[in-house]
């Protein structure tokens, strides 16, 4: 039987408002422990929350970008669970009346747009950060003691819940890349996973291909990069298929994915299901955004990444368009092409060489970049790489690099090619047995021998003609 993965994501995004969602403490990363706190975010007796207006507006803005209906009457609720990082004993969140519902995100693919439903997007407060000292794996169980840093507590958080519309780990990754780029471009979050500003949980189940049933799902947590998320989902899909194929049943369970070993570890299951005892937060009034505010926020929306991928795809191809847009590189690309560069060559240089060199994209002159793109095959690789690395320097000029010429003379390069092939008989054998990808290896060796001064296109032709002779 063939199986189809059914995947839904829960994405938490920190909003980069100046102050926390229910008090006036600054939001920040890296300040001294417990220095950004007050009676409200420490849950002192009698302290009351007040909604951060900007956080509400940004939640609505994100909802609009995700095609959601914006609730005219949204209600904050208390979600109870006892944990030391939750000073009130409850988290203020939204429950049955969230700010944004029924949206969708279009994921451009070669087969047309995939529609990923957005069930809801709501605003809530983040918990504080607990650091468990001693014991194994930084968990509370077995720790010698635990420390709490309340600086993070009360940071505004938007939770986005997708419908179970995602059908592969790769699709999950592409969805997340597009979503991240969307929030970054809206200017509401830095969405940096390494700082915990974007966190993802995946709900995974599988079903026989073609069926529309929803089988028992599991949840994967603790995945801190898009690649890990994709690997975690892949591992879980495989595990579930194995379980069903062996005649067993998948049980509802939460797993942690360990990226180092590629394994999933089941969390200790609780005796009872969680009961959060939600009820409407009596300390806050409902969020009722006036229609003109919602209209104004809608008018502020920029052209969104998914739309731009479609637009670029016409001039480029889907993969390159996706890489440029989700990397925030498409504007520079457009200006570089306008300055005369070849579209595909410019895309390759920007997405690979420029990003790899860590250049400040904002400081790059498209005109100079266009000159380098045009000269890439002609000038020595070392000169090209150096020029790319310096593109962001103030007053950078491509001219000194453009006058250098790569060695394209076959007579000069032939002996070097021959030497490289003789030195690597194993790889030559493998190439001849069909491992075409080794061509790059040989070219690289020749480039190394010539200190990067050889013309890679000429070298590539020489290697190929010798090996295929």
């Amino acid at each position: 039987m063939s199986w189809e993965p059914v995947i839904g994501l829960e994405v938490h995004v920190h909003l980069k408002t100046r102050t926390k969602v229910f008090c006036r403490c600054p939001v920040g990363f890296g300040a001294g422990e417990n220095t950004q706190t007050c009676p409200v975010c420490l849950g002192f007796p009698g302290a009351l929350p007040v909604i951060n207006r900007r956080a509400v507006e940004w939640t609505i803005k994100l909802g609009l970008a995700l095609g959601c209906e914006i609730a005219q009457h949204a209600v904050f609720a208390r979600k109870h669970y006892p944990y030391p990082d939750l000073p009130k004993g409850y988290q203020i969140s939204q429950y049955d009346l969230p700010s944004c519902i029924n949206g969708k995100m279009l994921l451009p693919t070669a087969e047309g747009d995939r529609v990923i439903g957005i069930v809801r997007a709501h605003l809530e407060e983040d918990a504080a950060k607990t650091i468990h000292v001693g014991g194994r794996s930084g968990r509370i169980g077995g720790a010698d003691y635990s420390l709490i840093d309340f600086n993070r507590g009360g940071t505004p958080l938007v939770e986005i819940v997708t419908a179970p519309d995602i059908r592969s780990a790769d699709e999950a990754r592409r969805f997340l890349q597009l979503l991240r780029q969307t929030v970054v471009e809206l200017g509401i979050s830095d969405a940096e996973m390494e700082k915990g500003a974007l966190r993802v949980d995946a709900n995974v189940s599988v079903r026989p291909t073609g069926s529309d049933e929803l089988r028992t799902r599991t949840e994967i947590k603790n995945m801190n990069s898009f690649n890990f998320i994709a690997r975690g989902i892949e591992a879980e899909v495989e595990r579930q298929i194995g379980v069903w194929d062996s005649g067993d049943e998948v049980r509802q369970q939460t797993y942690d994915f360990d990226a180092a070993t590629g394994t999933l570890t089941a969390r200790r299951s609780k005796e009872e299901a969680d009961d959060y005892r939600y009820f409407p937060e009596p300390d806050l009034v409902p969020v009722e955004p006036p229609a003109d505010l919602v209209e104004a926020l809608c008018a502020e929306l920029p052209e969104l990444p998914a739309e731009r991928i479609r637009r670029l795809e016409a001039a480029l191809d889907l993969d390159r368009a996706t890489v440029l847009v989700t990397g925030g590189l498409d504007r520079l690309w457009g200006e570089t092409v306008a300055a005369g560069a070849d579209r595909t060559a410019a895309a390759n240089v920007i997405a690979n060489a420029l990003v790899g060199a860590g250049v400040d994209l904002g400081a790059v002159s498209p005109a100079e970049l266009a000159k380098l793109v045009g000269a890439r095959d002609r000038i020595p690789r070392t000169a090209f790489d150096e020029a790319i690395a310096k593109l962001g320097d103030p007053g950078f000029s491509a001219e000194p690099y453009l006058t250098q010429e790569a060695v394209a003379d076959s007579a000069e390069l032939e002996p070097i090619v021959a030497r490289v092939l003789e030195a690597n008989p194993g790889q030559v054998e493998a190439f001849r047995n069909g491992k075409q990808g080794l061509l790059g290896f040989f070219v690289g060796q020749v480039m190394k021998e010539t200190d990067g001064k050889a013309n890679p296109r000429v070298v590539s032709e020489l290697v190929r003609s010798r090996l295929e002779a």
Partner: protein
Amino acid sequence: MIDTLRLTAEGAMGLLERGELSAGELHAAYLGAIAELDGELHCYLRTSEEPSGDGIPIALKDVISTKGIETTAGSRILSGYTPVFDATVAARVKGAGLSLLGKTNTDEFAMGSSTENSAWGPSRNPWDPARVPGGSGGGTAAAVSAGLAPWGLGSDTGGSIKQPSALCGNVGLRPTYGTVSRYGVVAFASSLDQVGPVARTVRDVALLYSIVAGRDPLDSTTAELPEAVQLPEGDSLAGVRLAVPKQVGDLDAIEPGVRAAFEASLERARDLSAEVGECDLPLSYRYGMPCYYLVAPAEASSNLARYDGVRYGLRTPASAYDEMVEETRDDGFGPEPKRRIMLGTYALSAGYYDAYYGQAQRVRTLLIREHRDALEGFDAIVTPTSPTVAFPIGDKAADPLAMYACDLLTIPSCLAGLPGLSIPCGLSDGLPVGLQLIGRQFGENGLFRIGHAFEQAIGFDTVPERLR
């Protein structure tokens, strides 16, 4: 010699203004009275030796956070907790120059009708120290009646201002929900809690209300007053229309002596040219209590979740976090908070929410509507404040349901968010009886006018007979 038993806040203000008395002397006079009587009455949990302002002294119920002064809400779990911030109402009375006399006793987390649930022992009624002063704000009410404070602030969830005022023979206002900030007031049931004044005259109550009321940016549920507070004058009730709920006649819980004093008050109102009619509140008296005892414990179970021993107050050491929290809460909470945490947790549980908390909220909507309809064509609803006079200490302590029934008459209007004023209207067996006036939303000025006129006509002597 300052007679703190007779001196009103307004009167004291006059003495200060005319320079006949200094704020220090005034403060000292009350401290002297406290030294003399509070050993017996136990109104105060803490007193301030030095005046903190140049105005009238004031007593604050111990649920009101005071910066730098221990605030326990009558609970062991908050022992040793000293707030780093003032509640908005504490800041407002300070801003008006009032001088903090001390923190007054309360049932634990304001849960109770007698102060017997205070972790620090009960307060006693100045009219008869063998009896309770009512609760939860019994400390403030008893202090005001015994001349240990000219006035004070209490908090009212289902009757905690009005009922002790009735039992101690003074004036208490539970304001319209949302007119006084709850910021910094230790929460019991957030959708019901309101801070309000207690004093010996309606004018003093109005004056203190004018100091604390009004929108607070730190409390989203507050609103600006639609009109300024007016100090009441005159003694006429001409043109005033009062409504007695039909159901009051059938309530067996109302003691004969209380009923007699209530009916005499209605006679007095007619003498003063008021029109006394009848209104109908069938749902309020039938479902008010059960509704309240779902809403209030549900919110309490949530509000009390923060007391875990991690950041402040009591901590009972244990070898693991979960154990520490359990032990701390077991040691820190008395029986009544524990009872309400259990009730409330149950009412909010998955599978029970709709039947209990959800249903109670729907009932509450009906009670709001019923009160609005009842007040059509009337200026105020009148009932006795408490079905009984002050009862002996220990009488109901073992019977939670009997204790809950003390608030039978005060609860419905609390659920409806409406203002209620209790004024003394007479004695029954030598103990004070309170008259409750319920007004429209933001109708405090009307209640002050009516209450003041009654007060002039009744001429009740607020000084307990045994202290005269």
